[in-house]
């Protein structure tokens, strides 16, 4: 095929795919730990410690996927990086301050004098909320083509709420898998409560996307494209149904299937993300800049790609190692 002979054609594609993959991994992984942060106010003091313990060994590596995603945008599509980030200047700042607050609260709540602990718990929740809302807002703005008009901002505020509820849902699903007893029962309740966020979020974005851009409309409803797209809504609906059915039966005897809600929500995130990627391709700045126009010089991309091919499998391997080491129910975190 021609495409593979000309690095100008396939390199941007490969990098867009890598970037998409790391955004997806980020949304799932940091999604659950942001979500756990969002559930802090709903739990009592003792449970708060277990909530934090369930994500303690993971959160830092989870956030590194954000650094990788933004790094890939930066290195592979520098122009787009500038356009997107200057357009999203304010939500980015809100997100960053949120991430700062929650990241340090982890440590401070355990190390600062006891009297301060409630404040750091509060900062942990506030930070998680700021970060989730800002990410949802950016998602909405991106779908709306990154232009600041009143209706667009209103839409973005909606997606901010939906994504936040969605994160708390995957966070609760994580807790179902990582905790037991009364807390687990509570987590099942939280997960049920979060389902509507997922449902409305996916619905809102799916309804809005085609009507914002005639190009995407054509991509969705033209024939035979309609057939390629059909599995997305069908599978998503099936997964939501499954979740609803399953959560009503949880927790099960011997803690069976404790992982299924988390797995199902992961699949749901992946599907929604796949749908969005399908709609926006080949644009990196919606309807303005394609990945081919925005890409860096092939020499530079090649250098990164070679490194990535060696390093990414290693990263995945040791990430898996850490999930294996810290498998099982969350217990107290200790340094010795």
């Amino acid at each position: 095929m021609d495409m593979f002979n000309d690095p100008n054609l396939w390199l941007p594609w490969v990098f867009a795919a890598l970037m998409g993959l790391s955004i997806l991994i980020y949304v799932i992984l940091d999604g659950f730990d942001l979500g756990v942060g969002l559930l802090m106010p709903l739990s009592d003091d003792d449970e708060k410690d277990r909530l934090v313990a369930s994500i303690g060994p993971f959160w830092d590596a989870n956030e590194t996927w954000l650094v990788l995603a933004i790094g890939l945008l930066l290195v592979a599509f520098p122009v787009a990086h500038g356009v997107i980030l200057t357009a999203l200047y304010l939500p980015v700042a809100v997100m960053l301050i949120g991430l700062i607050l929650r990241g340090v609260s982890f440590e401070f709540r355990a190390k600062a004098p006891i009297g301060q602990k409630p404040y750091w718990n509060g900062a942990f929740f506030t930070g998680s909320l700021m970060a989730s809302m800002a990410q949802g807002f950016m998602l909405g703005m991106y779908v709306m083509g990154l232009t600041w008009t009143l209706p667009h901002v209103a839409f973005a505020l909606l997606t901010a709420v939906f994504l936040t509820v969605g994160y708390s849902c995957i966070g609760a699903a994580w807790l179902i898998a990582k905790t037991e007893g009364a807390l687990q029962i509570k987590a099942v309740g939280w997960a049920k409560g979060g389902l509507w966020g997922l449902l409305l979020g996916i619905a809102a974005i799916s309804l809005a996307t085609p009507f914002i851009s005639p190009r995407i409309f054509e991509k969705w409803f033209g024939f035979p494209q309609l057939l390629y797209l059909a599995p997305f809504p069908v599978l998503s609906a099936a997964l939501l149904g499954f979740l609803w059915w399953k959560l009503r039966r949880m927790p099960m005897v011997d803690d069976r299937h404790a992982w299924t809600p988390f797995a199902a929500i992961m699949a749901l995130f992946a599907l929604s993300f796949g749908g969005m990627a399908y709609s926006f391709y080949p644009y990196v700045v919606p309807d303005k800049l394609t990945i081919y126009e925005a890409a860096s010089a092939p020499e530079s991309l090649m250098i990164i790609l070679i490194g990535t091919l060696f390093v990414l499998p290693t990263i995945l391997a040791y990430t898996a190692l850490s999930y294996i080491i810290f498998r099982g129910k969350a217990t107290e975190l200790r340094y010795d």
Partner: protein
Amino acid sequence: MDTLLLSRIQFGANISFHILFPTITIALGWVLLFFKLRFNATGDKKWMEAYLFWVKVFALSFAMGVVSGITMSFQFGTNWPGFMERVGNIAGPLLAYEVLTAFFLEAVFLGIMLFGASRVPNWLHTTATFLVAFGTTMSAFWILVLNSWMHTPAGYEIRDGIAFATDWVAIIFNPSMPYRLAHMLLASGLTVAFLIAGISALRMIWGDRQESVKSALRVGIILAAGLIPIQIFAGDMHGLNTLEHQPQKVAAMEGNWDTQSNVPLLLFALPDEEARENRFEIGIPNGASLILKHKADGVVPGLNDFVAEDGTPEHPPVAPVFWSFRIMVGTGMAMLALAWTGAYFLRRRGAGFMPKPMLFAFAAMAFSGWIATLAGWYTTEIGRQPWLVQGVLTTKEAVAAVPAPIVMATLVAYLVVYVALILAYMGTITYLAWKASKGEPLSTRQYPRSGEAEVIAVPGE
């Protein structure tokens, strides 16, 4: 204030906040590995106690470093889009390699290092400690390669106004990289040495006589005394390298206006850019010529060589560079004096019998590494102005067209958060030291539970 100035202040504030914590984690990781290896070798529990105390400081610093670092990676896009557009082909791969080879390594193994001790074999825990230390050092390597390239660009060509890489070896081993890397790693070592010595001294002042504290004090003082002469030597070499590649920066550091011989080493002066002269000069005759040219009558470049035809200066602002350089060197000299006096008493009397004034002096200098490091970075970075990439891209060309009030609002928000967090950070470290010196277990189980009296020793998060 305009967007450019605000963006510069914002970037300066963000990176200054960020660098405080990497300077600690880079070297503290290796010190922890040392504690761990000593424990493995001797089985003496004082090394484990030292490890368990300092690993808490490490975890706290690491968290601060990570979250402020995430801010940094967004700053290029939000405030300096021109940077990536013009030199992205070079900066991009370097940043990507930092993420790929360093950040994931640190982040994943940090979890195992902090919480895995009871879950993995001892060798794996030691390896994880090593990998975290190695990761922080790798990350310093890559970011300093990029930063050095911005000062002394090499291995590239400009096509249509955009930089393209031609020689990656030349880019990575650009002329100032070895000097800057060595100077920064030593700076990190010194910061940690004084932090450890200072906090241990504080614990001794509070009456803590544990073996682990004495050993930590000894390690801190010996490390400081060993590194500081090397640092002064490395700094001198670094200055000579800068003289070759960025003479205008050295002229500003020396406060030297005219290219001439027999230039004095100024100890004090108030550089006046309007009048283009210094007021209230106090200097050592021929000092600067001797340091920079190793001859009393050596010719040192002056700032007046770097002025455009129409009179606009093409050199950095003089006073900030001049003064931050003096703060760094002054702190370095104070470190030399204290570390060596400390080492003397250590030999004569041992760590348990240090004179009180020495303990107070070390406690007062606990965070001195921060001051020298920040002052050093200000010298380097302000000294590069008006360039962002020396000779390739000016700072003005790179700035984003974000409305000034928005930059202002976010700047204020960042500053508020930063000030609060620095205070909390310093306060918490002192609090941990106080608790440890009172022999209280460093428990995290802080909500009293009914029917449970025993407290678990040293858990943490």
